[in-house]
């Protein structure tokens, strides 16, 4: 999905708009020079109490842990809600009620239950990434072609077979969509998660840079998040292609 040319065009447009054309004031959006200076600052001496590598390491491990937690809990719940009408009727209302509550709103309770350590941040990431995994899995399971299910049943599929040989493979494309959205949610909630007492991390950098009105640094942090997100999403796409060879 990634082509280099449009990105190059974009970078040229950015140079032109902030530089020679002067369309955008540096305070409102950094010019390449300012962004580069910010990058040098954070990569070398560091910013917001640590160098860039450390921030990246913190955020990356946080996202990975949160994503893993969300996937490992969200997909099973989605499968349950999708396959069992009764479980769905029972659990879905609670899920729907709790889901819209922003992770930020949970922060006080998070601090109460998990303190200000890694657990609290992972919990916040999990809160955000959980719902997309559940919803897409559930939708995918519901959408499984009925004739195919019938075909499996008449060939003697018991619940186990039906589940592992039909429901799961048929739902996998949808599950992967859910995982992609879930991964995105992980990164999206990074700032909120690192509101819960962070020393380092890209979200922390964003918070500090926001308070400092340092548009260059905000931009650098955004760029890092975007690039890490893209990299992880590409890995996920690879995984998907490998898991689903039967799709065109």
């Amino acid at each position, binding site marked *: 999905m990634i082509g280099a040319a449009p990105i190059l065009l974009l970078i040229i447009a950015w140079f032109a708009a902030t530089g020679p054309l002067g369309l955008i004031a540096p305070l409102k959006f950094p010019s390449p020079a300012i962004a580069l200076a910010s990058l040098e600052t954070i990569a070398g001496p560091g910013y917001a109490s640590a160098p860039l590598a450390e921030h990246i390491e913190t955020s990356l491990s946080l996202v990975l842990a949160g994503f893993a937690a969300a996937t490992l809990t969200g997909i099973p719940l989605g499968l349950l809600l999708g396959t069992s009408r009764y479980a769905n009727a029972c659990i879905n209302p609670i899920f729907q009620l709790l889901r819209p509550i922003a992770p930020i709103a949970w922060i006080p309770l998070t601090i109460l239950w998990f303190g200000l350590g890694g657990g609290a941040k992972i919990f916040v990431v999990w809160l955000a990434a959980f719902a997309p995994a559940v919803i897409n899995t559930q939708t995918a399971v519901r959408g499984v072609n009925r004739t195919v299910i019938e075909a*499996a049943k008449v*060939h003697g599929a018991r619940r186990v077979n039906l589940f592992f040989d039909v429901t799961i493979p048929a739902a996998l494309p949808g599950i992967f969509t859910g995982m992609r959205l879930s991964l995105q949610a992980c990164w999206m909630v990074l700032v909120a998660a690192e509101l819960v007492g962070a020393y380092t991390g890209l979200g922390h950098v964003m918070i500090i840079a926001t308070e400092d009105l340092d548009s260059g640094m905000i931009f650098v942090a955004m760029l890092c998040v975007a690039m890490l997100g893209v990299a992880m999403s590409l890995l996920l796409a690879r995984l998907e292609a490998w898991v689903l060879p039967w799709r065109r």
Partner: protein
Amino acid sequence: MSEIRFEGVERRFHRPGGNFLALENICFEVAEREFVALVGPSGCGKTTLLRMAAGLDFPTGGRVLVGNREVRGPGPDRAVVFQQFALFPWKTIRQNIGFGLKCKGTPLTQRREIIEHYVTLMGLQGHGDAYPHQLSGGMQQRVAIARSYALEPDVLLMDEPFGALDAQTRVLMQEELVRLARDNPRTVLFITHSVDEAVYLADRVIVMTPRPGRISAIIDIGLVRRTERWIDCEHIEEVMAQKSFVHLRSRIWRLLRGLESSGETVGRAMETGVG
């Protein structure tokens, strides 16, 4: 104990405009190890009938019994070949064919053997590891047939299984089915649009009326087949050339064409006995 019985079956569908009566007062039975073919105009409810025997649909009136027990759901004792293939897109051809066996718990080596047998029988060599979307329509249907055959079930329910096959394969399959039915007879309910096929394969042919589907006539072929010793013919063309065959065939044709009045038809249905 695997005969199929329809007792006064009725099926209505809900449609936005109101109820839609698809089947009305269907009474017949397929005796154990009997081969019954169902013919009738498109939309008369053949598929619906078959789905009820499979346990995939339920009557809104009357009841359906298989082996003297009311049908409550699908099971591996009744294999179905669907009109629209219904293969598993995520399984290779081999995995598709082996699915039922896997569910049954057949050991791997034995399973492999059976799968290879059917891959060869259906002329699918070289496609065993392809996915369904990479095959032509006819090939997909052959996979679907193999998948059901591989289970060797007591009851076979087939919905136009040969409809998408080419003439060549179709004949091959018909002959194979007859051979199977001779060597190892099963209870078969078989839907087809080809009168030739029905007469060639079935012990009895059931002719249905258009909407709402009712039984118009039940024609006994088995007796003729036995007395005329069709079994001695090696090829289908030879059978089709027989006088008795042509006679039966045109009788069914006339029924389908509506050349016989419906009153007469009902009478005939009575006279042939079952229902």
